[in-house]
Each structure stands twice: as structure tokens, then as C-alpha cells.
């Protein structure tokens, strides 16, 4: 495992291009595009203000930079550096901007969600969509980029409009049986739209592409409801995380609950492996679970924060829990994050009142597989897009990797502390961008075979 040198960054804006060739990062008002392999700067764009949002077009030809404060969007072309495009939303303001899947249209949401403006880069045409709903996840495109589902609010009722992305024609428009629609997401196969209600009410609605209601699911009443939702890549399962600290898996045939994953703080099942991160007093040799040393000389290891390693804790064990303040809004409880592995075999979850732990569930056996307990609260985790490998960051200057073979904790080398606040995988799964507040670096993993070997060895050692 190798680490690149540290580059400057602002606003956690660092993204791999969808084709995996480039890496774009923002430093204040500058956008730097690097080659992923050599990390040489290919392009440097200067925006009019500090960039608040940056997004690659789907074909990796354009970069969109939004400056919400100024109501401005600037688009840069990778092929033609002299090409430029500036969209000014004027007094209407701007709160969100995104590419359409074809990479030739930009959807800008004005302030107060007055409307969504669809700007085309091909023609002069401008489309407006009125009454978009201000909610958590009100816009969603299908994977194939054909359709856009948009949440709308008219006369105190929720509606969903489905547009054909190719010509922005309205395909379907239907009202949903929700009090206050909070979010929606297309199934990966693009045929089912999951729509869920606000957290005050547990309600999950499933609509077909043609607007038929396929099923409605409600686990309970009177209590805070859905907090997070994830489709399995195979579209077979819909995982619904809720405030009661449970994940419910709905199946795609009957849309009824297949199983329920509770997240108790006490783990007693002996089949579950609990990896506990423990601090290691600094200059000690490398423990069995920490990763092999970095290439000598290239990256001098300065131990500013104590190293850590994983130990297999003996069950039963109880995890550190947080007592949520139930009298406050948005209490820190329930399943706040959940993600399926790319092969749909595993589901990683985080219960917000056990913030230090990541649960990994085996979807084949529908049971708890592994629990990782970190020293500090888990900030984010993301699956390797190619294999069941989970990267976790906790705000410490370490990155944690888990795979079915075992897990490891890797210290990010470099001068000074480098708290990793976020991370994103390269589409090949060979490298990982670790994002800090002011810096970022790339972490190159060995070829997948090598890593698998190493992980296998690690597993056999433990």
C-alpha cells in the first residue's frame, strides 16, 4: 500500500472522473485536474469565486463548478481548455446544481425551490420545472440515465413527476400517499421507485416506472421512522434503516419484509466476529493486524498519533453507546448509514447511537457477520466498487479496510496530523482518495490479487 504526497484541498471537493482517468480537486477558486496515474496536473481552471460544489459529467468531458453564494455555475471542458460556460441564475439564487446523466444539461435549483432550470449545453433551450420539493433527496435519475424522478409539492400534496431525460418530456405525474415526502430512489434496474415519508411516519412506498403503486410498507407507527434507505445492486433487496435502530430488508417479489437486523449494543452471538480497534504504544513493532510498513524512505512515518490495530474481541461484548437526547430534533439514533457491497453479499450499517461501530451483515445468511468497533466515531464508509472491501474513516489520520478475510488499520503517513474526514474509491478499486479538511492524498492499494493475498495471510495469522 502506497500513499501519494499530500495535496491541498478545500471543501472536501475531490472527485475521480467517471472513466477513472482523472482526478479533480478544488482549492478555493481553483480547480485542478490531475492524471490519476502520474498525479501530474493536466488542467487548471480558475473560477470566479470559491467553489462550493463540483461535479464531473457522466462522460468525463466537463466539470461543473457551482458557486451558490454568487448564484453562478461554471463549466469547464477537459478537451478544450479555452471553452467555457457560465450560467448565472441572477436574483433567483442557486441552492443546488447537478448534471443530467447525458452530460449536456445542467439542472439548477433556485433558492426557495421556486423552480428547477434545465440548461442545455447543446442548444439555447432552457426548461423550467416548477414546484420542486425541498427535501432530502428530491431528484433521482435512473442508472441508465433515461429517467428523472422529481418530487413536487403542490397544494400541500406530494407528487412525483417522471421525466424522460432525453427531451425533458413529462412521462408520468402522480400523487403519492405521503404526509411529507422525504426522499426517493430508483432501484438499480430502473423499474421501481422507492419513495419514503418524513421521519415522523414510517412509510415506504414502491412505485413502478409507469406510476403504479406496487406496495406500501410500514413497520410501525407513532415513532420516528425511516432514516436511511439503500437498494442492493441486484435490485433484489431494499434496506430500510430507521430510528428504532433496525434495518429491514424488503424483497423485490412481495415487497414484504424478509428480515430485520437489530443493532443491539451487546453482541452475544459467538458466530459474530468483533474486531476492536486498540491503540498501540508508538514505536512498537507492527502487530499482526496492522498493515506492512510503507516503502522505506519515500514516506517517512512520523507517529504524531498513536498507531492502532485490530484485535478480535471475545463475544459477548457490549459496544459503546451514546445516550441520545430524545427531546431534541434529529436525535442521534437509528441507522444513519447503510450501504451494500457491489456484489450484494454484504451490507454495512452504522447505528448512530453506537457511533464507533460498523456492522457488516451477511446477506446470503441474513445474519450479522462482523462488527468493527473503532476508537472514534465513524465518519463515513464506502465499499470498493469492484470487490467486497470496505473502507472506513473516523476522522483520525488512519484509514481502515475490511474484507471478509480480515481487517486492518493503516496510518496515513506524512507531516503532521491528517484527519481523514471522507474518502472515495477509484472506480477500479485500486486507489482511494482520502480527504481531509485542507488536504487530500491518494492511497494506492496493491493489485487486487496482491491485496487478497495479503488479507488472506492476515486472516491466517489471526
Amino acid at each position, binding site marked *: 500500500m502506497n500513499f501519494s504526497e499530500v495535496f491541498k484541498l478545500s471543501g472536501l471537493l475531490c472527485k475521480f472522473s467517471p472513466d477513472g482517468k482523472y482526478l479533480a480537486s478544488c482549492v478555493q477558486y481553483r480547480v485542478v485536474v490531475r492524471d490519476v496515474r502520474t498525479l501530474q496536473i493536466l488542467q487548471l481552471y480558475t473560477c470566479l469565486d470559491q467553489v462550493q460544489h463540483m461535479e464531473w459529467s457522466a462522460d468525463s468531458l466537463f466539470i461543473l463548478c457551482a458557486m451558490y453564494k454568487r448564484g453562478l455555475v461554471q463549466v469547464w471542458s477537459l478537451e478544450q481548455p479555452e471553452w*467555457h460556460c457560465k450560467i448565472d441564475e441572477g436574483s433567483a439564487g442557486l441552492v443546488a446544481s447537478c448534471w443530467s446523466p*447525458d452530460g*449536456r444539461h445542467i439542472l439548477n435549483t433556485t433558492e426557495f425551490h421556486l423552480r428547477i432550470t434545465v440548461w442545455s449545453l447543446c*442548444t439555447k433551450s432552457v426548461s423550467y420545472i416548477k414546484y420542486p420539493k425541498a427535501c432530502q433527496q428530491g431528484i433521482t435519475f435512473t442508472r441508465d440515465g433515461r429517467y428523472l424522478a422529481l418530487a413536487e409539492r403542490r397544494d*400541500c400534496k406530494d407528487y412525483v413527476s417522471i421525466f424522460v431525460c432525453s427531451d425533458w418530456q413529462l*412521462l408520468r405525474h402522480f400523487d403519492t400517499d405521503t404526509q411529507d415526502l422525504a426522499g426517493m430512489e430508483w432501484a438499480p434496474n430502473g*423499474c421501481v421507485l422507492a419513495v419514503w415519508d418524513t421521519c415522523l411516519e414510517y412509510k415506504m412506498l414502491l412505485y413502478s*416506472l409507469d406510476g403504479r403503486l406496487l406496495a406500501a410498507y410500514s413497520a410501525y407507527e407513532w415513532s420516528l421512522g425511516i432514516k436511511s434507505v439503500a437498494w442492493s445492486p441486484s435490485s433484489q433487496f431494499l434496506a430500510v434503516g430507521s430510528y428504532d435502530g433496525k434495518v429491514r430488508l424488503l424483497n423485490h417479489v412481495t415487497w414484504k419484509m424478509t428480515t430485520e437486523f437489530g443493532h443491539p449494543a451487546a453482541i452475544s452471538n459467538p458466530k459474530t466476529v468483533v474486531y476492536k480497534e486498540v491503540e498501540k504504544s508508538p514505536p512498537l513493532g507492527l502487530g499482526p493486524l496492522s498493515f506492512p510498513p510503507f516503502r522505506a524512505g519515500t514516506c517517512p512515518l512520523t507517529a504524531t498519533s498513536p498507531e492502532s490495530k485490530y484485535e478480535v474481541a471475545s463475544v459477548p461484548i457490549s459496544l459503546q453507546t451514546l445516550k441520545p437526547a430524545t427531546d431534541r430534533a434529529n436525535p442521534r439514533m437509528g441507522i444513519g448509514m447503510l450501504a451494500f457491497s457491489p456484489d450484494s453479499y454484504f451490507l454495512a450499517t452504522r447505528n448512530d447511537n453506537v457511533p464507533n461501530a460498523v456492522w457488516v451483515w451477511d446477506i446470503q445468511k441474513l445474519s450479522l457477520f462482523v462488527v468493527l468497533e473503532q476508537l472514534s466515531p465513524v465518519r463515513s464508509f464506502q465499499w470498493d466498487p469492484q470487490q467486497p472491501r470496505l473502507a472506513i474513516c473516523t476522522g483520525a489520520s488512519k484509514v481502515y479496510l475490511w474484507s471478509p478475510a480480515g481487517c486492518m488499520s493503516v496510518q496515513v503517513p506524512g507531516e503532521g496530523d491528517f484527519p481523514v474526514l471522507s474518502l472515495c474509491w477509484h472506480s477500479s478499486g485500486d486507489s482511494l482518495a482520502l480527504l481531509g479538511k485542507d488536504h487530500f492524498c491518494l492511497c494506492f492499494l496493491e493489485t487486487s490479487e496482491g491485496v487478497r493475498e495479503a488479507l488472506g495471510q492476515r486472516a491466517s495469522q489471526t
Partner: protein
Amino acid sequence: NKSISQYTSETKMSPSSLYSQQVLCSSIPLSKNVHSFFSAFCTEENIEQSISYLDQELTTFGFPSLYEEPKSKEAKKELNIVAVLNCMNELLVLQRKNLLAQENVETQNLKLGSDMDHLQSCYAKLKEQLETSRREIIGLQERDRQLQCKNRNLHQLLKNEKDEVQKLQNIIASRATQYNHDMKRKEREYNKLKERLHQLVMNKKDKKIAMDVLNYVGRADGKRGSWRTGKTEARNEDEMYKILLNDYEYRQKQILLENAELKKVLQQMKKEMISLLSPQKKKPRERADESTGTVISDAEEDAGELGRESVWDLSCETVREQLTNSIRKQWRILKSHVEKLDNQVSKVHLEGFNDEDVISRQDHEQETEKLELEIQQCKEMIKTQQQLLQQQLATACDDDTTSLFRDCYLLEEKERLKEEWSLFKEQKKNFERERRSFTEAAIRLGLERKAFEEERASWLKQQFLNMTAFDHQNSENVKLFSAFSGSSDQDNLTMHSRPRQKKPPSVSNGSPICTSKGTKSLPASPTLDSCQTRPCVSEHNSVSVLNITPEETKPNQVGRECSSQTWSVASRPGSQEGCYSRCSLTYTNSHVEKDDLP
């Protein structure tokens, strides 16, 4: 009581009563007192009166008169001393008896008194107990009442809580509606504002809202944008439905695939089940379950029907019922079969060791032990006889006279010894013969075994070939094979015992007359064992050796009975049965020989 009798006797004022009173008062009357007493009663003067008085008294009590029988009426009565003395003696005896009785009565009285005391104390205790239990009952009743009270209170509380919950739920509901109402109101206001803002912001031709682009770029797909027309709309619809259709088709295909897979599994399972279960029909005697028998035949019919591949390609609707029924039936059979097997296993476990060869070894050991014991006994007999002979010879040499004297005895003795000797020899000969017969039996058994093994091997081969060919028509063979494979315990057993079984024939083939060796190599087979034991059994009771009934074997060999039973249960039909009977024939022969023995 006592005092009353005393008083009554006193009123009479009779000397005897006085006397009795005296006696009663002082249990051990002093001689002095007695003397003084008598002196007071009878003086020189009133002898006559006293005597007559005493006579009167005594006669009234039924004693004979003190006077002699008067010869005539006029004659004066003469005092009969003998009678007096008799009377006195009788009186004394009586008195002693009375004293004894009195003592008894007194002790009894004392006993009764103590009994009385005891009972009284018991009574008091019981009364106390009664009191305490009464108190306890009251206490418990009180507690019960209190608990009931508490319960009532709790019920009340529960009801209150329920009411509270209901109330709170109502409140929540009302709040929710209120909140929703307020939300709606606010939202309306907000919408109004939004509308207004929209008008203000959007309708005023904002120069600023614009896109400044160097040049327009081509579309990603290279096509030119098309006008929105009804046509495009229709096309979009079409496309959408196409997508949906594709998805459904994909899913249907997957389901079909899954179904086919499941069907395949089901079919395979069914085949295996049929092949596993149908041979049960071969042994209807053992598996006396008529119901399963009929079911099996049904299952076979079904198997014939469902064996045709075409049935499997039909949609589930038509075959489902048939299929589920047959599966259910077979499952039932399988279940009963497994249960049966379980029962067998448990039975065998109860009997101790499962393996038959272990039992046979035990039997063999017992047998050899017995034989050794007999040999020992015979040896001892020989020894004693020799000793006796020597002694007699020695004594004969020592003393001629005695020898002469005992000559006749010696001759007699010799005669007897000779007789015994011949008897013993005969016995020995019998033993030898018996052993030979055993070895012969062993040889025969070994050959039988070998033949059976070969037969079996050929069977297996055939079966295997049939199996691989997977020919459904040769289901007969398949059945037989699975009968063997079904009872895996037996199979294992034969597998284990095979190497050992091979030995006896080779040994006996080499030297059929070598009896001692033959007997030692016998234990390999249980059948041999069973025929070994029988003769010994019959030796003890020489009654009708030819038909050995189980009653005969019982007293001697209880454990053997069990083992032989298990053998018969586990035995496969065929050659072994015959072998068994032949063995029994050989030993019956030996019995006949033995019967000649005195």
C-alpha cells in the same frame, strides 16, 4: 372402688371378711399379726362354733364340708382334719392367686394411669396445635385479603394507566392533526409567498439570468435534438413499456430458471427416494406395515407416471397436486422408515454392543472356558483315580494280611475303576467327535460364506452397472441394491467382518481334522457360535436332544438368546439362513451321540 369393697366386707362382720380385709390392707401380712388375728377369732371356748361357722362359710363358698359325712343323722358331726387341711391349702392357693391378680390389676391400673396422662398431654398439645393453626389460618386469610386489596389497587392503577395511554394517544393524534393543519396553513402561506416571489423574480426580465457559453457542444449521442411532438410522447411511452417489459421478462426468465433447477432437484430427490424406499416391498413379512405397503405401490405407480420427462415440462398447475401428493407419501414412508431404523438402533443400543462379532467372540470365549473347565474336571478325576490306585497298591504291599483281607474289596474297586476308565475314554472319544463335527461345520460355513460373498459381489457389480446406466426399467435391481445401501449399519458390519470371515475356510481347508485349531478359529462367524453353544446347553438337560426348544436354552443362556435374536433380525435372506439350518443339523447329530452316554 377398692375402698367400697372394703366397706361392704366390713359390714358383714364375718371373721373371714375381717381376715380378707386384713389381707387386703397389708399386702405382706406379718406372722405375728396373723397369729394375733387368729387368736382373736378362735379361743379355747368357741372352737366348736368357729368350726361350724367356718364349715358353714366354706360350704357356702363351695368347699367340701369340714365335717365327716355323718353315718346317721343323729350321730355327731366329726371334724375331718383332711378336709380342713385341704380347705386350708385351697384357701392359701386361692389367696396367692388373688394376690397375683391384684398385683396385675395394680400394674394395669398404673399403666392405664400413665396412658391417661399421656393421652391428656397429647390432647393438650393437639389443642395447642389447633389453636396455632387457627391463628395461622386467620393470619393467612388476612394476608390474602391484603393481597386481594393490593391486586385490586393494581388493577385500578393498570386501568388508570391504560386510560392515560389512551388519553396520550388521543393527544398525540390530535396534536398530529393540529400540526398537520398548521403545516398546511403555513405551507399555503409559504406557497403564496413563493408564487409572489416567483412573479417578482422570474417575470421581471432578469437580464442576469443567462448562460454565457463560448459555443454549443454536440450532444453526447451525436444526434440533434428533436421537437417535442405527440410522436415523441408516444415513443417515450413505448420505450418505457419496453423497459418494463424487459424487466419483467428478465425476472420471468430467472424464475423459470430457478423453477427448472428446483424441479431438477425435486426429480432427483424423488428418484432417489423411490430407489431407496421401494425395496421395502420385498420384505413384507419384516415390515408388517400394510399401510406403507400400499403406499409404496402407489408411489411406484406415481414414479412410473412421473418418470416420464414430459410431465416435468408441464406447467406446475397440472402436476402440482399429483407431485405434492406423491412427494408427501414418499416422505411419509421415508419418515416411518427412518423411525424404524431409529427404533432398531435404540433396541440394539439397549442390548449393549451393537456389533455381532463382539457377541460371537464372547460366546466363543464362554465356550472355550466351558470346555477347559470340563477338561480340568476330567483331569482331576484321573488324578484322584490314580492316587486311589496307588494308595491301594501301597497298602496292599505293606500289609499282607490286610491285603488279603481287602483283596476282595480291591478287586471290586478295580472293577469299578476299569468301568470308570472305559466310561471316561468313551466320553473323551465323544468330545473328539464333537470337535470334529464343529470343524466340519466351520468348513462348511466358510465355504458358504465365500459363496455368498461372491454372489454379493456380483450383485453389487450388477447393481452398480445398473445404477450408472440409470435405467429405470431395471428398477428391480435398483431396489435390491438400495435395500442393501439403505440399511447402512448392516452393510458396514459385513464390510468389517469380511476380512475375518475369509480366514476360517482357508484354515479348515488345509487341515479339516485339526480340531483344536479349528475350534480356535471358529469365533469369526456368529452362526457357528450359535451352533457351538447349543450342544453344551443340551448336555445339561438330556431330555429329547433332537428338538431344542427355546425353553431349554433359556435357563442357561439368557444373553445368548438376545444375541441370536438380533442375529435373526439383522440377517439377510438367502444363503445364511441355509447355513444356519445346516449347522443345526450337525450339532443335532452330535447330540445323538452324546445321548448314548450314561
